[in-house]
């Protein structure tokens, strides 16, 4: 039997990704399934969902079934100069009362530019391992934050502007910026930016502050590096990728695979999270939602050969027939085909004789 057909797509993905991350010196990180609830309450905005499953342990401590991996890794991250921890994981997390298979990596500690570039390259490579056609959208929270700041928006207005950017909603952005042409010019440039170096040049024209330019420079060299490594055709600068303002500080990105209706990879640089935990270290990582792969590729035929018999056929005859069939694929021997199962070919025995 062809062993490849035995692996589900998400299982193949787990192995391929594990191999990729090991090649780059990342070590596996196995987490306990439980974590103190307190960790999630303190960092609620960092989580994708606020539906956390909690329970008390014997001593009355409130525990949670892990809804996220990153928080636990950062909590235990090294905080010494020159030390970088590179880990990958493959875990089930619990969100909205569903169990989600997630794999990913985190690079935390005293990071430099190389580590940021490495994680981005690994994100692109991960997507290429998962499917032929993919797109990786790249944005920068530092740039978004600096632009919102320079537009003189209040906290609530910033959230609204981020929401418009996230939805590529230029018409509401225009209404929202009425009476503030400077904000409109900048935010429109961000909303319309899509593509490569030319798109970035368009954005650069409207920037005014030093923080904005510094963030843009970071995006530029990252773009050039990825393009130079041959990923240019799969990469787009796109500022609809953004996240809650309080955690992410640098580059943020999101990956899509053709044929899968949601984004499958999501990540970014989240130094502020480490800062909130009282650490000076920097951190970048991404997660891949392998559940999304489950939807595709299950065959309608679940077995190659079905051998039906009436219960009066010699087991030795059936065994021989089953062995023969098993040589060419999977076989199911039964007296009647269970509902919902389908075979490619069918053999039938009646009173010890093959009749079909």
């Amino acid at each position: 039997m062809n062993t490849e057909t035995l692996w589900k797509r998400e299982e193949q993905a787990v192995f391929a990704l594990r191999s990729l991350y090991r090649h780059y010196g990342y070590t596996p990180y196995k987490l306990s399934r439980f974590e103190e609830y307190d960790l999630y309450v303190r960092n609620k905005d960092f989580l994708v969902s606020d539906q956390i499953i909690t329970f008390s342990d014997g001593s009355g401590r409130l525990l949670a079934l892990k809804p996220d991996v990153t928080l636990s890794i950062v909590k235990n991250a090294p905080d010494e100069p020159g030390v970088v921890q590179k880990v990958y994981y493959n875990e089930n997390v619990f969100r909205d009362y569903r169990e989600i298979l997630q794999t990913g990596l985190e690079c935390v500690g005293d990071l430099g530019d190389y580590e940021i570039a490495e994680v981005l390259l690994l994100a692109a490579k991960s997507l290429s391992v998962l499917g032929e056609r993919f797109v990786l959208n790249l944005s920068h929270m530092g740039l978004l934050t600096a632009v919102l700041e320079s537009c003189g928006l209040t906290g609530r207005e910033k959230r609204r502007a981020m929401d418009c950017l996230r939805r590529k909603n230029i018409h509401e952005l225009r209404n929202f910026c009425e009476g503030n042409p400077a904000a409109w010019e900048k935010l429109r440039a961000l909303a319309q930016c899509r593509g490569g170096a030319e798109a970035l040049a368009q954005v650069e024209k409207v920037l005014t502050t030093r923080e904005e330019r510094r963030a843009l420079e970071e995006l530029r060299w990252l773009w050039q590096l990825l393009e130079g490594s041959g990923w240019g055709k799969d990469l787009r600068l796109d500022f609809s990728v953004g996240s809650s303002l309080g955690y992410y500080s640098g580059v943020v990105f999101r990956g899509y695979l053709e044929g899968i209706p949601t984004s499958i990879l999501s990540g970014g640089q989240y130094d502020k999270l480490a800062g909130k935990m009282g650490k000076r270290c920097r951190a970048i990582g991404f997660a891949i939602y392998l559940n999304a792969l489950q939807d595709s590729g299950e065959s309608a035929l679940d077995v190659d050969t079905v051998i039906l018999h009436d219960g009066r056929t010699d087991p030795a005859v059936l065994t021989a027939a089953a062995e023969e069939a098993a040589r060419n694929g999977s076989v199911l021997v039964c007296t009647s085909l269970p509902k919902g199962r389908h075979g490619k070919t069918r053999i039938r025995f009646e009173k010890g004789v093959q009749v079909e």
Partner: protein
Amino acid sequence: MNTALNIALPKGRLGEKAYSLLKSSGFSCPALEDPGRKLIFENPEKNLRYFWVKPSDVAIYVERGAADLGIAGKDILLEYAPDVYELLDLGIGKCRMAVAGKENFREPTGQTLKVATKFPNITRNYYAEKCRDIDIIHLNGSIELAPILGLSHVIVDIVETGVTLRENKLQVLEQILPISARLIANTASYQFKEAAIGHLCRRLQEQKEGSL
């Protein structure tokens, strides 16, 4: 890989208006104009595929990728908050989301306000901003009946011309926000069908501006 653009249209008047806008922008589908019981209509020449769905379901079809694009009212987008791109305000199906109550209504400021609506999330968010304590009565239709029978103090609903309200001796008390039809896109489809979606968007925009 399926390269056709799949477009979900909302059944009813809004969908018909949206289709005629699409048609005049060069995205016609003759099969759609033949009455019948078919559910899906294709124009292989233009690589387009249309289907009609319940208006409140358009966002779900698009969010989950069964449709690449869809036409949905802003009310539906606010109520269900789907994770989709909102690419264009089509400027059709214009109406407003409003609070309405009986003529000469005086708000019982000392009590919890009873609000009947089809849009519980929009209602909750609107009153939460005002820190007003409310009791939402979720109805599926004939919302106007609620204040008349004393089921609720006010309603939150879509008001188009205001005729139904007037005929029932109701009036708009507060406007929540203007509503119109939007072109929405599945975020993943956008990545892989960017050229086709971008082309359709530009044509619709030109058509819309031309008709103003």
